[in-house]
């Protein structure tokens, strides 16, 4: 708040002319503007952000390399987590891992953050581990399966 030197009316700091008498706040304006400038808070520093490629303002967005695989990995990861205990669905988890690794690597190499791929990878690993735990039993040695067919072999 500042006061007009001519009529004494109270005016806002940021007005250039007195609202009452029209007197121009020249010296006072320049004097008073210096103080607010000094009191201005420091410019807000943008936190370090990963370098995103600059999209053009018009035109189609360029395809992100590996994003399709990352999304596939996420879907497969969820499925393998949900169904991994049945064992046979181990293949879903394995494909999910492959997609997550390749998709994530391609996205990161192009400079994009690859959270989707990481999430898909982690879920696929857990799903595969659960499936492996339950499915890869000692039957994996193959000896048990022999029992079904061995009597028929010479």
């Amino acid at each position, binding site marked *: 708040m500042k006061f007009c030197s001519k009529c004494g009316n109270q005016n806002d700091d940021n007005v250039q002319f007195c609202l009452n008498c029209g007197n121009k706040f020249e010296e006072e304006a320049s004097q008073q503007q210096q103080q607010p400038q000094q009191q201005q808070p420091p410019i807000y520093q943008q936190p370090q952000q990963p370098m995103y490629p600059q999209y053009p303002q018009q035109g189609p967005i360029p395809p992100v390399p590996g994003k399709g695989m990352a999304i596939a990995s996420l879907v497969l990861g969820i499925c393998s987590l949900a169904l991994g205990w049945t064992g046979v669905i181990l293949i879903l988890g394995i494909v999910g891992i492959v997609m997550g690794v390749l998709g994530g690597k391609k996205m990161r190499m192009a400079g994009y953050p690859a959270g989707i791929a990481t999430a898909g990878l982690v879920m696929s690993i857990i799903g595969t581990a659960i499936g492996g735990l339950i499915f890869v039993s000692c*039957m994996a040695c193959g000896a048990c399966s022999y029992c079904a067919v061995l009597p028929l072999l010479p």
Partner: protein
Amino acid sequence: MLPFVNFLGREIPMYGLMFVLAAIVSIGFAMLRAKQRGIPSDDTLYTSLFAVIGAIVGAKVLYIITMIGPVIKNWSNMMEANVSVWEIIAFASGGFVFFGGLIGGIFGGIIYLRMFKLNIPEYVDLIAPCVPLAHAIGRVGCFFGGCCYGIETHYGVEFNLSPVAPHNVRLLPVQLIETDVNLLLVLILLIYGRSHENKNKSKNKPGKSLLLYLILYSVSRFTLEFFRGDKARGIFFGVSTSQFISIIIFFISVLLIAFYDKIIINKI
């Protein structure tokens, strides 16, 4: 011994548990070594994952290959006995062969390294000691499951709970012996890696650890195979399948390590 563990109301097979544990421990060990050597650990993780997947695929494919012969030979017998297609498929899906896994694992890892143009010998040296480590832990699972059992001895162990081993027979716990041998291989590979690390870099020839492992493992596998009691795995020219493959891998590895500079350094 203890094929199943009761956990949260479910019967969990020990073999599968050891399999998963082996993967976790060996991949974790690889990532630890990567940190020590300044190699990015996420690339190590991805290479290891690809290697594990390659190993699963390779082991399964080799098993199916070994099974195609007997299945085709006995197709008429099986059709007569009304064996359903499902049973045949279940039969084919029930096994893995270690050497198929080894070759598949190597291929899987190299595929990833080639795809992203990473230094292959460096990663090979990094991951090489983890292979016998994983194998050692897996063999403990074999011991608990009772598969890959040994010959009859009068001071052996009885596998009465196992669905795979013969009951009421004292068998040599060859699985545990294989665990010890594999742990010894881990030690040898670590010492070999350490002794070549600090020396003159130009003379340092990375990538040989894997070949050293193949040579040592094929020799030990050939020897231990004589103490195996589950010979129903196939006979090839007088020696078992595994011994035959061991001989082949031994000679190929010796050749590769002798002509290492000419063959591998120029190829990769």
